[in-house]
């Protein structure tokens, strides 16, 4: 499995490229508007971007997902509850995406936005235990995401604490956490 965090320092945003070393298929999670970093990374591994996922409707940056899909012919996946005007396949809670030895399980983590999803990643060539969680804007460095941007803050905070956090706590302690922001943004 290939795993690469792609940071844009100016805005503190983190996107991810995950690929199968068996099949060369790659998935890009939460790409920014500029798609060059992902195209270059995939090319360096002789991989092919086959899937693009947006974890939620971002409010701090323009998603590059549709640009990347146009450029690569990849399939666009969005959370089931997201509201968009364009076509995409929808990801259900508990659904699994498979790229060769890499398995990615969709976890619905509401609170920041109602549709927010995370991906729980397993490298089945190493074992069946999850290896890391892409938390997007649900869980940040030393903080939880803002629950008050897309909805009333109390409503957001309630589902964040009642639904999302118990799911996080149920994961094994060794699971690594990779957030969607590092610093300098919401």
């Amino acid at each position: 499995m290939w795993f690469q965090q792609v940071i844009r320092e100016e805005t503190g945003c983190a996107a991810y490229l995950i690929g199968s070393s068996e099949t060369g298929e790659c998935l890009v999670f939460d790409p920014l508007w500029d798609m060059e970093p992902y195209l270059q990374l995939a090319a360096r591994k002789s991989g092919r971007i086959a899937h693009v996922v947006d974890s939620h409707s971002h409010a701090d940056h323009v998603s590059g997902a549709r640009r990347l899909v146009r450029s690569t012919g990849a399939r666009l996946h969005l959370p089931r509850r997201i509201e968009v005007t364009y076509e995409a396949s929808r990801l259900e809670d508990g659904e699994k995406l498979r790229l060769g030895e890499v398995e990615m399980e969709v976890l619905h983590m509401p609170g920041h936005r109602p549709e927010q999803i995370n991906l729980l990643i397993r490298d089945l060539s190493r074992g069946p235990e999850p290896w890391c969680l892409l938390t997007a804007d649900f869980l940040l460095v030393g903080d939880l995401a803002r629950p008050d941007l897309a909805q009333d803050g109390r409503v957001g905070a309630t589902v964040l604490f009642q639904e999302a956090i118990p799911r996080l706590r149920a994961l094994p302690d060794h699971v690594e956490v990779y957030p969607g922001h590092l610093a300098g943004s919401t």
Partner: protein
Amino acid sequence: MTADQPPRPANIQNIVAINQGRRPLTMDEPSAGRRSPSEVLDLIRKGRRVLDTRSPEAFGARHIPGATNVQLDGSEFEQRVGWMLSPDEAVVLAVEAHEAAQRAVRKLAFVGLDQGVEGYVEMEDWESAGLPTASLSQIDVDQLRGRLGRDGLKVLDVREASEWNRGHIPGALHLNFKHLPTRLGELPLGREDRLAVICASGMRSSTACSFLLRNGYRNLLNVTGGMRAWQNAGHPLAV
């Protein structure tokens, strides 16, 4: 639980609308075309805003009257611009050279503000054409210290509440620069007041000054070096 959250970013409705497909996404690389000074003068008369992306020093020396200053090469350009521009507003960039304009419009694409850009003007062209310029006086922290309490000078600190709470100039007023467009009226300030504006380093304060100038404030001083220099110099702090 959420009362202590930082302000809600002004540009988020626009970005969400783009991401949801309700507003157009910039699919191809954007670019800004060079405009002659007379074209830009014409656009300004039609209500276009000038976004000056040069340094506070350059802006302070000479700028197009009414321009908004957010430094391209400073930190958080994309976020800061979002507090000053409306997503529906057409803008002309004021830059040193072509390359800066292209970098600016590309950075604006990350936050969905590129589509309003109607080109750029090089400041050298503007000055050579003999068109009017304005200036913004700059003072350093030692000069500010010497002038505190004289001539009715007021100090406005435009940093985040968290920065303000860690220490500020005694007697200063506080309003986060992000709130200027919506909450300026809450400050006990008149347009004729002598006002020194300070942030951490001198960048956000220059943005704040540009907003105040655009809104008719006349006696402004931008404090270079900001609160970092103030503290390093050992000047008094209130908490």
